[in-house]
C-alpha cells in the first residue's frame, strides 16, 4: 500500500514539476530573446500560467477526425504518456526516497523510455493525416537512431560505477570532484554525447524535424486537441524531465551536495533543472537541420564515438580506475 501512496504522490509531484518547467522554459526563452515571457496570469510574473494552460486545454473541445483509426487515435496519448511516467519509477530522489530502486534501474529506464515510440507512432498513424504520418515516420527514424548513442552514453557511468542500480551510481560519485562529469576525459565526452542524444531523443531544436512547424504543421499531434493534446504535451515534458533527472543522476552526482541530508532532493532537482536548461539553451540558439544530416550525425559520428568511448571506459575500469564497489 505504501508503494501506491508513494507512487501517487510522486505522480502528482512530477506533473507539478512538468507544469512549472514549461513556465521556466518560456521565461528562459523569453530572456534569451530579450522578452519578459508570461507575465499577467497570476502574480507576480505569471506564476499561475501553467495552471491556466492546463485548465484551458481541459475545457477545449475534443475533436476526433472522422476517418481516423478511432481506437488507435484515442489510445495513443495514453500509450505515449505511460512510459514517460514509468521512467520515474526507478529514480531515487534521495537515499531511500524512490518508488523502486531496482538493481537494473538504468536499464529499466532505457527500456521503458523505448516504449514511447509506440504511442507516438500510434498517434501519427491513427490521425489518418499525412503530416502526422510523415512526422511519425521521421520520429521512428530519429528516435531509433539516437537511442543507441543515448544508451551507450548512459552506460559510461554505469561501467564506471560498476552497477546499474541508480543509488549505487550516486554513491560512487561521492567526494570532491567525484561526479562522473569530472572524470578526466571520459566523463566530459560522455556527458556531451548524453546531452546531444537527449536533445535528439526529445525532438528539440535543432533535431526537431518530426514536428517542424514550417513543414509538418505540428507533427504527429496535429489532429489532437483538448485533453489528449494535454496528455501528449505532458508526456513529452515528463520524458524530458525524466531524462534530465537521469543525466543529473548519472553525471552530476544526483542528490549529493553540501548541507544536511534533507537538502538532497533539492540538489537533485537543481541539477536536473540545470540539465534541462542546457537542453533548452541549445533549443533556442540553433536552427533546425535536415533529416539526412540528423541521421548522419547519429550513425557516422555519435554512434562510433560512443562505442569507442564505452570501450575506453571498459579498459579504464579493467585497469583498476573504476569507482565501483
Amino acid at each position, binding site marked *: 500500500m505504501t508503494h501506491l501512496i508513494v507512487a501517487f504522490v510522486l505522480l502528482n509531484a512530477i506533473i507539478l514539476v512538468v507544469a512549472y518547467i514549461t513556465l521556466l522554459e518560456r521565461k528562459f526563452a523569453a530572456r534569451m530573446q530579450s522578452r519578459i515571457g508570461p507575465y499577467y496570469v497570476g502574480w507576480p510574473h505569471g506564476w499561475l500560467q501553467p495552471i491556466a494552460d492546463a485548465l484551458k486545454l481541459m475545457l477545449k473541445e475534443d475533436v476526433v477526425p472522422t476517418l481516423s483509426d478511432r481506437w488507435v487515435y484515442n489510445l495513443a496519448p495514453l500509450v505515449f504518456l505511460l512510459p514517460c511516467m514509468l521512467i520515474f519509477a526507478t529514480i531515487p530522489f534521495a537515499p531511500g526516497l524512490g518508488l523502486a530502486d531496482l538493481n537494473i534501474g538504468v536499464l529499466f529506464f*532505457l*527500456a521503458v523510455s*523505448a516504449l514511447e515510440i*509506440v504511442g507516438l*507512432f500510434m498517434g501519427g*498513424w491513427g490521425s489518418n493525416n499525412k503530416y502526422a504520418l510523415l512526422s511519425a515516420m521521421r520520429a*521512428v527514424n530519429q528516435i*531509433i537512431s539516437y537511442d543507441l548513442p543515448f544508451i551507450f552514453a548512459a552506460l559510461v557511468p554505469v561501467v564506471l560505477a560498476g552497477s546499474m542500480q541508480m543509488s549505487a551510481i550516486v554513491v560512487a560519485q561521492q567526494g570532491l570532484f567525484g561526479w562522473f562529469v569530472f572524470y578526466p576525459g571520459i566523463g566530459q565526452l560522455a556527458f556531451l554525447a548524453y546531452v546531444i542524444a537527449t536533445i535528439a531523443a526529445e525532438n528539440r531544436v535543432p533535431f526537431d524535424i518530426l514536428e517542424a512547424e514550417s513543414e509538418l504543421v505540428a507533427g504527429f499531434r496535429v489532429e489532437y486537441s483538448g485533453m489528449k493534446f494535454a496528455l501528449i504535451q505532458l508526456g513529452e515534458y515528463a520524458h524530458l524531465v525524466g531524462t534530465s533527472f537521469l543525466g543529473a543522476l548519472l553525471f552530476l552526482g544526483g542528490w549529493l551536495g553540501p548541507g544536511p541530508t534533507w537538502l538532497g532532493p533539492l540538489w537533485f532537482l537543481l541539477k536536473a533543472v540545470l540539465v534541462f536548461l542546457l537542453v533548452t539553451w541549445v533549443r533556442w540558439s540553433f536552427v533546425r537541420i535536415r533529416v539526412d544530416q540528423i541521421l548522419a550525425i547519429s550513425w557516422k559520428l555519435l554512434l562510433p564515438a560512443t562505442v569507442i568511448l564505452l570501450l575506453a571506459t571498459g579498459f579504464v575500469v579493467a585497469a583498476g580506475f573504476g569507482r565501483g564497489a
Partner: protein
Amino acid sequence: MTAEAIGFWLVAAVLLATSLAVVLTPNLFHAVLFLAAALVSTGVVFLLLDAAFLFAVQLLLYAGGVITIMVFAIMLTEQLVGERLRQTSRWVINGAILAAAVFVGVLGFVVRSARPARPPAADRTADLARALVGPFAAPFELLAVLLVAALVGAIYFARTED
C-alpha cells in the same frame, strides 16, 4: 490469492487476449500493436518470474526494435500497395483444429510432468553476466556474428535496385 497470483492471472489474461487479437484482427496495423502489447505482457511475465533483466531486454529489443521494424515494413508495403491493410485468413477451421491439437499434445506432457516447488527468489543478474562471459562466451560471440550477418543480409535484400 496473493498479489503475485493476481498479477499472474491478470497478465495471463492480457497476454492471451492480445495474442488472440494478433491472429484474429483483420487490420494489420492493429495486429502489430496488439503484438506489442503481447510482447510487453510477456515481459511482465518475466518480471513475475523474477527475471527483471530479461524484462528490460524484452522491452528494449522487442518493443523498441521489432515493433519499429514491423511498422516500417507495413508503411513501405502499404505505401506501395496504396490500399488499406486488410488481411484475411484462410482455412481457419483447419488451423484452429491443428493448433488445438498441438496445444493438447503439449498439455499432455505438462500434466504428466513433475510439479517442482518454487525456490526462493534470488538476484541472478550478476550470475547471468558472468555466464555470458564465462561458459557461454563462445555462443555470445557467435551471436554478434549472427547479428552482423543478419544486418548485412537485410540490407542486401532490401536495397533498391540500381
